[in-house]
């Protein structure tokens, strides 16, 4: 707990955290309101063209708040997370190495497992706060638009699990280097490679395509976006976090033997 408290104090003692929260809220709001503006425009054009006036009974089913606003906003937000989260995770372990404070942590009787757990906890908490901030606008507006709260909860869960998954990847990349730039770039590379493998379907056999799809982040996230909460997807994100924790812990052992 001491390290969790210290890391939270360090995180919120610097302007970077507030800047990141403000930026994510701002960008989400811009994406959301831009889609909402386009939806309103489309609605206006459809109703005026067909009836010469506003008659909501004539609006095609495909033009709805969910398909035209919420779903594309969530897709954009998901992709944005892949870009933004490695910038947050890059410093978590790499900065300790550069400062030499990782040695201080080890000699203050914190075991590598406790250090890794504390770092993951603080990062997950910050990412959850980031998601809550970014989700407020769409949730408030869409809830008014008639989308069920259960569906919204599933979408938020998907978004949060995706964010934690990308954070896990970023944390592992940070644990294996002392360069924040290398941590960020490798985090992006791994997360983008894992994002979606549908492009590979044309080049590989069906079995390999199915295997690759099982590894990909986007199909899991997309299922949550459709309001489907399946055990397999929950297990996928839990496994991703566990593998990341183990690898980050392993980086300490590797350093001890001097590799």
């Amino acid at each position, binding site marked *: 707990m001491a390290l969790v408290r210290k890391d939270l104090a*360090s995180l919120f*003692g610097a302007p970077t955290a507030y800047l990141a929260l403000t930026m994510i809220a701002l960008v989400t709001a811009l994406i959301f309101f831009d889609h909402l503006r386009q939806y309103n425009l489309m609605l206006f054009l459809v109703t005026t063209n067909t009836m010469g006036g506003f008659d909501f009974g004539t609006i095609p089913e495909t033009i709805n708040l969910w398909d035209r606003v919420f779903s594309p906003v969530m897709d954009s937000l998901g992709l944005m997370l892949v870009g933004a989260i490695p910038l947050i995770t890059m410093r978590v372990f790499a900065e300790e190495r550069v*400062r030499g404070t990782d*040695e201080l942590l080890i*000699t*203050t*009787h914190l075991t590598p497992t406790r250090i890794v757990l504390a770092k993951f906890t603080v990062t997950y908490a910050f990412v959850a706060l980031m998601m809550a901030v970014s989700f407020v606008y769409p949730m408030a507006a869409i809830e008014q638009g008639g989308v069920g709260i259960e569906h919204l909860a599933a979408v938020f869960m998907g978004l949060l699990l995706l964010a934690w998954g990308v954070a896990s990847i970023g944390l592992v990349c940070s644990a294996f280097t002392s360069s924040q730039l290398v941590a960020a770039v490798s985090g992006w590379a791994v997360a983008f490679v894992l994002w979606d493998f549908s492009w590979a379907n044309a080049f590989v056999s069906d079995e390999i395509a199915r295997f690759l799809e099982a590894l990909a982040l986007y199909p899991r996230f997309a299922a949550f976006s459709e309001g489907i909460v399946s055990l397999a997807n929950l297990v996928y994100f839990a496994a991703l976090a566990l593998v990341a924790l183990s690898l980050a812990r392993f980086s300490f052992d590797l350093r001890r033997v*001097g590799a």
Partner: protein
Amino acid sequence: MDPTEAATQSPEAQRPQTQSTKAQDVAIRARGLSRRFGSHLALDGLDLDIPARATFGLLGANGAGKTTFIRLCTGFLLPSAGSVEVQGVSPCVDPAAVQRKLGFVMETSRLYPELKVEGFLRFCGGARDLAGAELRSAVQGVIERFHLEPVARRLIGNLSKGYQQRVSLAQAFIHDPPLVIVDEPTGGLDPVQKHEVQQLLRSLQGERTVLLCTHDLHEAETLTSRVAILNAGRLVAEGKTSEVLGRGDALSLFESNRRNPS
């Protein structure tokens, strides 16, 4: 016989006596301790006993293997060969038990500049499983002992190097360990700050084991009772400070293997 050769042989000559030293009188015991980084042998078969409740100096030029030896003692690194015991416990087997018994002041003040002094010391105490009244008392104790009262509520990043080094010393003493390892405590300090830190180290003499790593001969002469000299990862001399450093050729011990690397 060449004086350097004689000095190189002296630890060998002392080994039977060293090995007979009782375990409780030894704070750190290294036997055949080696550490390799790729093709570079940073520490080469070190045999060394550091007596308990003494201020012991570990001397050597930059790159001699002092910091590697310390990292092996703290459990931060594992040896490539040989063994080391700290207070009777192997840091390879039970690093947590070793870390409970030691305080460590690093070469340069590796602290968190964004934290306040008091907050940082509270963190160090908490990380060492101190809590509640015990933690408050420990933090207050080291603040008073290392004269940190005027800066207790200031950010570490805004402090002078001298104060930062005091903070570094304070964190090492927060759990009142029987063994403290101090690595180059006065590097980069101005003469006044250097004097202040040396005064603090002098005040610790006799009450616990202090392993002082330095390349400052004057510092070793004034603060330590025994010294060992490392050169290119090997022990080249060990004994009473006055005897080892009082020799006319003491400086050659730092340079001999550099000229003729083996």
